[in-house]
């Protein structure tokens, strides 16, 4: 019986020859992940279950990235719970301070997640690792606490929506625009309970960082996971980071799909998602005149080194609009260092940017760039819900790093072509 890549990975981890959409399975987890917001609750659940030790000290990773450097006493107490638990359990992978960055950037960067794995994280953007050809999805803290205790998770095998991208990309158009365009097409619940499988000539030519961006936002269409078959690009990325052997799974040619969506990319411009849903997209040429107060470049969606390079290409030799705040958050300490070495950070500083530490920062309105009432931001982040970046009467427009950088220069929402 033929299977999709998602079904094959789930079957192997459930110890079965075959699974079909709708099957309830209990599957073994290769990596369990939580952060400073979700781990304290998961730890509480783990203790309630009554187990002494986590199922495997190498397969539970905890990352302090949401409200760090600790923004207030309450946040510091949460991180303390996580730190003490990690020490007491002897976890091999706990990241805080100068070792920490955004979870979905540092796990791939450190080679902790691999093709073919089953990865479950108490964070909705855990779907990011689908770009590596892994099954990876977000859950809540109770699920994560149970996984830490048992090493297993219950899952319903999702039907797969196959998305095929063909054609040639326009300049300044990349993974962010493809996924925003797709969410616009499908709606924020268009892939509810489903696996999204990204394929086609365009995907095979996309660099790794843009693949991560696409898989990262599968959740924004309601998807359970957003997966891509591993290819030479994937394997080269993984080989640079770990000596562990990846498990390569590919969809059978006659695998069944709930839907197949063909997307011709030639006409796709840089996309901008208007408030207050990621599906509310328009091409950048149709945005109109929207003055802005702040631009944020970073996050698990677009905090990669290459994203910073893209933004720096636009900002080189330019100044941001007077009175505007440009906040740049590199995704990891390594990205920070390499950006420094390449002179990218100097370009940002010369343009008038504030450079923050590697963390989630203002993306979820936590700290380091929260918006006041009536303020408008352009962000390379993933959500523009009401109040996401601060006051309930503030607004967020989502875009790629080129558009974010160009908007910072112009003081309004716009693309590099308008500079």
């Amino acid at each position, binding site marked *: 019986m033929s299977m999709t890549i998602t079904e094959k990975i789930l079957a192997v981890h459930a110890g079965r020859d075959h699974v079909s959409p709708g099957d*309830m399975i209990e599957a073994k987890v290769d990596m369990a992940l939580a952060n400073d*917001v*979700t781990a*304290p*609750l998961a730890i*509480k*659940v783990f203790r*309630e*279950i*009554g*187990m002494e030790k986590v199922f495997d000290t190498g397969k539970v990773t905890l990352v302090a990235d*949401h*409200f760090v450097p600790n*923004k*207030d006493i*309450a*946040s510091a107490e*949460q991180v303390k719970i996580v730190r003490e638990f990690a020490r007491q359990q002897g976890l091999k992978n706990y990241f805080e301070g100068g070792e920490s960055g955004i979870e979905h950037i540092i796990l791939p960067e450190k080679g902790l997640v691999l093709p073919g794995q089953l990865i479950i*994280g*108490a*964070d*909705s953007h*855990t779907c990011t690792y689908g770009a590596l050809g892994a099954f990876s999805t*977000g*859950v*809540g*803290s*109770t*699920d994560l*606490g*149970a996984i830490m*205790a*048992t090493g297993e998770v*219950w899952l319903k095998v999702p039907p797969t929506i196959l998305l095929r991208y063909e054609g040639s990309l326009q300049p300044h158009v990349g993974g962010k625009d493809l996924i925003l365009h797709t969410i616009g097409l499908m709606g*924020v*619940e268009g892939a*509810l*309970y489903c696996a999204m499988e990204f394929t086609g000539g365009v995907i095979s030519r996309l660099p790794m960082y843009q693949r991560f961006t696409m898989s990262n936002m599968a*959740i924004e269409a*309601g998807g*359970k996971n957003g997966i891509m078959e591993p290819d030479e690009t994937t394997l080269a990325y993984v080989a640079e980071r770990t000596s562990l052997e990846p498990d390569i799974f590919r969809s059978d040619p006659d695998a069944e799909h709930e839907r197949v969506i063909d997307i011709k990319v030639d006409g796709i411009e840089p996309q901008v998602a208007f408030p207050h*849903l990621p599906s509310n997209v328009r091409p950048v040429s149709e945005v109109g005149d929207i003055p802005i107060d702040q631009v944020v470049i970073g996050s698990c969606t677009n905090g990669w080194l290459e994203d910073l390079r893209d933004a720096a290409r636009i900002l080189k030799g330019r100044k941001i609009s007077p009175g505007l705040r440009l906040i740049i958050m590199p995704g990891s300490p390594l990205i920070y260092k390499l950006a420094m070495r390449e002179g990218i950070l100097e370009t940002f500083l010369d343009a008038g940017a504030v450079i923050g530490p590697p963390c989630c920062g203002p993306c*979820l*309105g*936590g700290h380091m760039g*929260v918006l006041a009432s009536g303020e408008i931001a352009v962000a390379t982040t993933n*959500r523009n*819900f*009401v*109040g*996401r970046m601060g006051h*309930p009467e503030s607004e967020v427009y989502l875009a790629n790093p080129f558009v974010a950088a160009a908007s910072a220069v112009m003081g309004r929402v716009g693309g590099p072509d308008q500079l």
Partner: protein
Amino acid sequence: MIQGRIWKFGDDVDTDVIIPARYLNVSAEAELAKNCFADMRPDFAREVLVGDILVAGKNFGCGSSREHAPIAIKAAGIRAIIAESFARIFYRNAFNIGLPLLESIEASKGLSDADGEDAVVDLAAGRIEGKGQVFSARPIPDFMAKLIDAGGLVEYIKKVKIGR
């Protein structure tokens, strides 16, 4: 049987609206309940009573995986949520903590103007009464029903997986 007042919400209610991120620096249930729907419906946390029922449209609970969202709703007093559809992580989280969800397009639409009115929910039968009408919901899947019967995933694992 669950009997209470209806709190009506629309489509795509996300977890940032249910519990804004600025309140996520604590995990205590009572604190989370106090700030539930803080921006969208400030009267909710003040006036909601134990046993009340939340009725929403499509894709309820979309966005982040924060379990603080269903915890806040449950700790505030809500005993069942009825919606056209639920975002999948919220769906898992709610059943895992023992907060039952019912999917019913007809009830969601039929009770769209019933904010503040009474409703009665029979979970086992998937039956919802309100505005003098009776609506039916999709049956709760077997596995989810087991979770609710056990009192959530923690109790389920203790009983079934570890045998305590």
